[in-house]
């Protein structure tokens, strides 16, 4: 037996040795000398890059290189900014509105509504098949297919570029109940002869059992327990889609619930309701997209649009290959499906790269498309772009240090080692992250009652308390503890937000924006000769947002106020529940620890000492963004909005429109705000109205002497001065609530591999550091392999 065991052990050892020796043979992945491979890694992999259905930025990343837009961002002449240049087009769009007078709703005298785009004549698919203007029309028809209901269909009718009849064709003959009735304030309702209510405009008012309503932020079905026996009544009245038109019976049910658990205002029942929108039957020939020649495409718009925003809206395209697309389409039991853009076989490119292979959750490889016009023109040195799925950051770093990756996004734990590296590049992001607070008195009262005896939450309704939370927060240290690449934020908009896209002016660099910060952080009075700061720049640069002394004073004031107003008893303990999306995210768990420790320390020596406690709910998951609205928690951090970097005017809606607000308590339809316009007069309107006004809607504004006037300064108007003044004023309004406290700006840091060379060191909005188009290489793949080998297989970047 002993001999046998020895033999087995010897055999096992021999096998292990053989494996080890074989492994020493190294990587047999030999690279061609002429190749320039860009190697990157993703921790989330794309799954669907169908131009009509993609949903995530990861999906869009493939799409960005296998397709292109009519226009594209490129460097300006001095290469210190961006400009939009023709990409698939040969020139800027030509205004042909007058050619379409009497058609598509265009009237005599209209301008900027019909645009002719002249296409390049060398556009083609990767297989060489030519792309004609008619292909764009066909692709638009597929995109707007009423049966498909494509996720990206709204790209042709939402936002500032609205193609005539695009939405009508999509919803062909349907009535949809998609608009929250209370989203833009309450409506006056009219009872019809049939007993059902409509709005003044004649739109039907209905309840939908299964869709998230404004009142709950979730569906009525999810909260059916609040309706008791009445829910059965609602179910009996609902049609097959769960829609119930509102009559007296339904209204009474809704009013009973809103009175019982809401604010109890007379029109609050409308927060359960939706209003209808009916669409006529429509043939695709009535949609404003016409191929007037093989290389001429005319788009007809419902609203005039020109200049930067017209080109910007045309920086992507809806083009698909009709043959392949049709092969990928199925309709089973009325359910449409399309697998276009889900694998290498179902993908065809017309961009600078083509998808050579794709293995789900493992790797995809893009190869340069030598038929592409930019490639022919000598751009895109990268011959192959290989993207691997590497979930763990530590593994990505190991790959990077072995020379197998060309960039590595630094993590918090890497910063100490690589922060000072000459290979580290810092990039500001567009988003601002906030601490969002719940100052909804009714919501807090309910949570307070549920939390138990002597637990207080309603002190959050006291503005001084929220101010104190803001001043007690050392944002630099918070970033270090959670995401060290981030920098502190003091305003609503980040440094990358562009307020004048035509000229590329960043909002934060304007005098108005600086004044907002100076006023809000209380340094305005310290500017000037003989004062603390020589000019506003110096004052703004001095802002840290951290003032512990002031915070302590505000905590005391808040306590006194809460006691005086009966919001709190002397023996109460304040308990703030902080929401975390999960228990496994170190960013959020560290953030929670930081906030609770920082505030516990901050109240020492104040009347709230020992009376401020924190709990967490780390089970929120997907409902993170709605947790405040649902009164599930009292505080969220690292919340914010992404996108719209070129349009802060519409981005403002995220903070002022009830559709998007994190804060459920700030009623912007009644919160009035004074703004001085360019005529020198100060006018008053609601915050919500001001927001709509700078996005093109006509509102009524009131001067101090009582006179009123209709006013609008949206994109179609030539009033950029007032528009900008309103934007800055509204930023001040949002900040002044202290419901959304600026925390950090989005930013990232990454190590750049030594094989590649960025075109520009500085990051510029729209063009980055030159992207793949301009990127150069210090070594071919073969030279790089030799270089790495010479370094012993491990590179040093710090």
């Amino acid at each position, binding site marked *: *037996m*002993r001999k*046998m*065991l020895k033999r*087995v*052990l010897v055999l*096992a050892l021999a096998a292990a040795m053989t*494996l*080890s020796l*074989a*492994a*020493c043979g190294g990587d047999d992945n030999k690279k061609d000398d002429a190749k320039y491979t860009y190697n990157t890694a993703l921790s989330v992999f794309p*799954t*669907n890059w*169908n131009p009509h*259905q993609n*949903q995530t930025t990861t999906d869009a990343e493939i799409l960005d290189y296998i397709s292109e837009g009519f226009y594209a961002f490129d460097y300006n002449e001095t290469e210190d900014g961006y400009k939009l240049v023709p990409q698939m087009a040969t020139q800027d769009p030509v205004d042909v509105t007058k050619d379409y007078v009497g058609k598509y709703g265009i009237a005599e005298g209209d301008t900027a509504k019909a645009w002719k785009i002249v296409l390049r004549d060398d556009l083609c698919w990767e297989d060489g098949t030519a792309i004609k203007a008619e292909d764009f029309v066909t692709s638009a028809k597929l995109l707007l297919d009423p049966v498909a*209901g*494509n*996720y990206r*269909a*709204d790209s042709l009718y*939402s936002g500032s570029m609205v193609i005539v009849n695009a*939405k009508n064709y999509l919803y062909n003959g349907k009535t*949809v109940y*998609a608009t929250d009735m209370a989203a833009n304030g309450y409506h006056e309702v009219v009872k019809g002869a049939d007993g059902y209510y409509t709005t003044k405009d004649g739109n039907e008012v209905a309840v939908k059992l*299964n*869709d*998230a309503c404004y009142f709950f932020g*979730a*569906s009525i079905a999810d909260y059916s327990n609040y309706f008791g026996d009445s829910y059965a009544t609602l179910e009996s009245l609902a049609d097959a*889609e*769960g829609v119930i038109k509102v009559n007296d019976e339904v209204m009474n049910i809704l009013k009973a619930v809103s009175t019982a658990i809401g604010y109890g205002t007379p029109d609050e029942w409308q927060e359960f309701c939706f209003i209808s929108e009916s669409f006529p039957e429509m043939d695709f020939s009535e949609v404003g997209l016409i191929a007037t020649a093989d290389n001429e495409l005319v788009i007809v718009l419902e609203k005039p649009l020109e200049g930067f925003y017209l080109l910007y809206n045309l920086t992507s395209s809806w083009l698909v290959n009709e043959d392949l697309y049709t092969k990928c389409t199925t309709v*089973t039991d009325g359910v449409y*499906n399309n697998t276009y853009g*889900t694998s290498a076989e179902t993908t065809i490119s017309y961009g600078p790269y083509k998808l050579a292979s794709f*293995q*789900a*959750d*493992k790797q995809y490889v893009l190869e340069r498309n030598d038929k592409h016009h930019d490639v022919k023109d000598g751009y895109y040195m990268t011959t192959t772009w290989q993207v*691997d799925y*590497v*979930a*763990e950051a*530590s*593994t990505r770093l*190991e*790959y990077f240090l*072995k020379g197998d990756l060309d960039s590595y996004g630094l993590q918090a734990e890497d910063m100490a080692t690589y922060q000072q590296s000459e290979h580290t590049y810092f990039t500001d992001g567009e988003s601002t992250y906030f601490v969002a607070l719940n100052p909804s008195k009714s919501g807090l009262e309910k949570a307070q009652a549920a939390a138990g005896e002597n637990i207080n939450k309603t002190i959050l309704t006291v503005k001084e308390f929220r101010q104190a939370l803001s001043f007690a927060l050392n944002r630099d240290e918070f970033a270090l503890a959670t995401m060290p690449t981030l920098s502190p934020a003091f305003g609503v908009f980040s440094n990358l937000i562009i307020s004048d896209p035509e000229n590329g002016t960043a909002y934060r660099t304007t005098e108005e924006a600086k004044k907002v910060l100076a006023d809000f952080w209380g340094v305005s009075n310290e500017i000037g000769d003989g004062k603390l700061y020589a000019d506003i720049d110096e004052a703004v640069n001095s802002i840290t947002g951290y003032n512990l002394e002031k915070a302590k004073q505000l905590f005391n004031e808040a306590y006194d106020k809460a006691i005086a107003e009966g919001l709190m008893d002397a023996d109460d303990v304040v308990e703030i529940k902080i929401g975390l999306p999960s228990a496994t995210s170190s960013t959020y768990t560290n953030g929670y620890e930081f906030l609770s420790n920082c505030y516990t320390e901050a109240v020492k020596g104040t009347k709230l000492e020992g009376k401020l406690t924190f709990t967490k709910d780390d089970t929120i*998951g*997907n*409902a993170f*963004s*709605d947790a405040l609205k649902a009164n599930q928690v009292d505080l969220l951090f690292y919340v914010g*909005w992404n996108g719209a970097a070129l349009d802060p005017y*519409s981005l403002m*809606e995220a903070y002022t429109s009830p*559709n*998007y607000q994190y804060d459920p308590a700030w009623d912007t339809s009644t919160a009035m705000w004074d703004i001085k316009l360019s005529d020198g007069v100060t006018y008053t309107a609601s915050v919500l109205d001001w927001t709509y006004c700078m996005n093109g809607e006509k509102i009524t504004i009131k001067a101090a002497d009582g006179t009123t006037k209709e006013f609008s300064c949206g994109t179609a108007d030539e009033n950029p001065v007032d528009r900008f003044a309103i934007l800055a004023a509204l930023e001040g309004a949002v900040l002044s609530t202290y419901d959304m406290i600026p925390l950090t700006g989005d930013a990232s840091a990454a190590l750049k591999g030594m094989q590649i060379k960025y075109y520009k060191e500085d990051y510029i909005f729209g063009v980055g550091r030159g992207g793949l188009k301009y990127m150069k290489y210090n070594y071919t793949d073969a030279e790089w392999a030799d270089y790495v080998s010479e370094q012993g*297989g491990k590179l040093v970047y710090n």
Partner: protein
Amino acid sequence: MNMLKYVLKRIALMFFVLFVIMTMCFILIKLLPVTDAAQFGKDMNLILQRREALGYNKPLLEQLFIFFQRSVFGGDWGISEALYRGQDVWAVFISKLPATIMVNIYSMCFSVPTGLLLGIYAALKKNKWQDHVISTLVVVFISVPSYVYAFLVQYLLCFKLDLFPLQMNSGTDYFSFSMFMSVVPAVLSLAFGSIAGLARYVRAELSEVLTSDFMLLARTKGLTRSQATIRHALRNSMVPVFPMILGEFVAILSGSLIIEKIFGVPGVGQLYVNSITALDYNFFMLLSAFYTLVGLTAGIVVDISYGFIDPRIRMGER
């Protein structure tokens, strides 16, 4: 005959349990609230309309009926609506299964003989230094979570010593040598826990059997120690161990969430958790049905296997 009746009864019960579990899974996942984050300028009706078309707004029992009719009896498990949008869930699942199976089979091939040998050796050397070394290592590998030594394996063997690639190779040439080399770190990381578990179990069982009266009898009948150990002790000690090995086969199909993630194995290990997080109903139900069925089948196979390993155990006997 009794055995056949027993097996048929177990199979019937298995389908009943499967039905109950599927019903519970279906209802519970559908009860989770669906919240679509608001997006700028997004026509949310497109999302609501899709949900309507997919029948998500129908009464739950009706949806359950459709599910059983279409998926369980019709074999159409539907389209992924979140994780792999637009793709057939069965096709995606099947395409990812080979990588998981390969890694786990290699792992079993390595861990079972190694675990058994170490366990036997420790039992034979009970209370000697060899036993102490093995037992200490067993305790270490059982106590330390697999991801810890997965990272260690990756760092030491792949990064520092450069013996293996950091992650599994891409592609589907699962039987190539380079692919084999690329999965060795994952296989080792998966195997350590199993080796330790098996070694501990075998050592305990064999130690007990070696001190039994019948072993003394065997020696007194003139058998050598080796003969007595191999012919009598080992076979008896395998009665509880063998079903444990069979049970491990279930793991072959389910994969490991952490190990697959660390070593880039494009398998099914992460699918189940991701399907719940993303509320991908069709994926969740397919995976629930598949793994429940595999688990229940394995249970029956393990129970029946007792009879073959130890003839004293009779199935279905009163």
